[in-house]
């Protein structure tokens, strides 16, 4: 339905990004099985249950949830989802969730796949993207900021970690129109460097 494309990470690794299809069920299960418990804490379902993954794969509906995966050959190494609400006052907002294999952290993969999602959000007619990020996840906050998200609010002690401690959540929002301001700013920077 959407096709695919190749991206290159900062380490020179070539990865393919594309929407998840039904046939990705096993690769997605394997991806979640490789993730440490600390990362799985951010996911709303028990993704180590093969039945959950099977249900996701069999009920894909890109109009409600668009899952974009990054693949290193046959292995899924990142999964970002765009959740949409078709009616009501939030119909122009997409909610974004992302999980990246720790072996691929620090390579610019999260930023690259989030940028792709913002661009797709624009194509889908969305105006704003919303993300909830643990306040102490410096790398995640940086990746979202690099993809045009801005910090909007902190809700103190909203959620619980594995040990039952309350942790703060940062609400980040990307205004898609303003996402494109960066292209003007980049040009100014290039001009300043040249001049």
């Amino acid at each position, binding site marked *: 339905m959407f096709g695919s494309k190749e991206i290159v990470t900062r380490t020179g690794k070539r990865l393919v*990004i594309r929407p998840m299809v039904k046939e990705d069920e096993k690769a997605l299960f394997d991806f979640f099985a490789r993730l440490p418990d600390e990362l799985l804490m951010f996911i709303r379902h028990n993704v180590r249950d093969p039945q959950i993954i099977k249900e996701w794969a069999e009920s894909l509906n890109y109009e409600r949830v668009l899952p974009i995966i990054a693949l290193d050959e046959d292995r899924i190494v990142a999964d970002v989802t765009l959740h949409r609400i078709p009616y009501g006052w939030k119909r122009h907002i997409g909610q974004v969730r992302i999980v990246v294999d720790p072996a691929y952290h620090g390579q610019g993969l999260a930023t690259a796949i989030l940028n792709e999602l913002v661009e*797709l959000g624009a194509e889908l*007619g969305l105006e704003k993207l919303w993300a909830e990020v643990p306040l102490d996840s410096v790398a995640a906050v940086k990746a979202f900021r690099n993809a045009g998200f801005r910090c909007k609010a902190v809700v103190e002690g909203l959620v619980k970690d594995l040990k039952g401690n309350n942790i703060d959540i940062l609400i980040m929002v990307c205004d898609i129109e*303003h996402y*494109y*301001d960066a292209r003007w700013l980049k040009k100014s920077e290039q001009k300043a460097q040249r001049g």
Partner: protein
Amino acid sequence: MRCYEMKWAIVSDIHSNIEAFEAVMRDISTWRVNRIIHLGDIVGYNANPRECIDLARQEGVHGVHGNHDLAALDLTLSEGFNILAYQAILYTRSQLDESSSRYLERLPFCLILEGEIAFFHGSPENVNTYILNAYQAKRAFNYIMKQLVSVRIAFFGHTHVRRLWHRDKVGKVKSIPIESDMVKLKEDGIYLINPGSVGQPRQRDNRSHYLIFDLSEQTIIFRSIPYDIHKAQEKILKAQLPEFLALRLADGI
């Protein structure tokens, strides 16, 4: 310029949608225009890039290049494209022959006619830059005032949404609501005007959009033309382009 009795048709973002382009050309033929100008992105997204180029050439349409036109010639320029746009560029490249590639190669970045009317795709500085909000419009106006000092009216595309920006003589920039199909331009200040898209409208109105610029009356007439969307969708699916590119045509997004 005021003494001319001239009408120009201005079209943008045709994006390989021959059904839409033909419908718009039929409507243009009823207006007795002196010139037809396109604002770039004649190819990309939809199924008939070569046919759209042939029709533009046949009808003597002058124009500028867009980011998709450039990426169709040089794939390295599609690096920043999203999955949908990238897939469509791969398809476009498979469809272009030597003659249609030559047409795209010869399109300039910017046209200035009558000394004070400019035409470009994204912004006066860059083919990839959008003019979507007041900040971006101010940047475009500033560039025009510094680098294109004679320009009073500039037409742009790229966003696929009809829009009219005005900078008055004291420098206040605002988006003028388009409440009727005809807008009379003021004598003072500078305008940035987007006609909307012929081949992939994104203003939640699935008709093809373009405009007529009446130079003698200094009016803009926005036109919205229905076309055979179903046929365009069938061609997209037959070409094995991403299905969403067909679905969006019906929704006008």
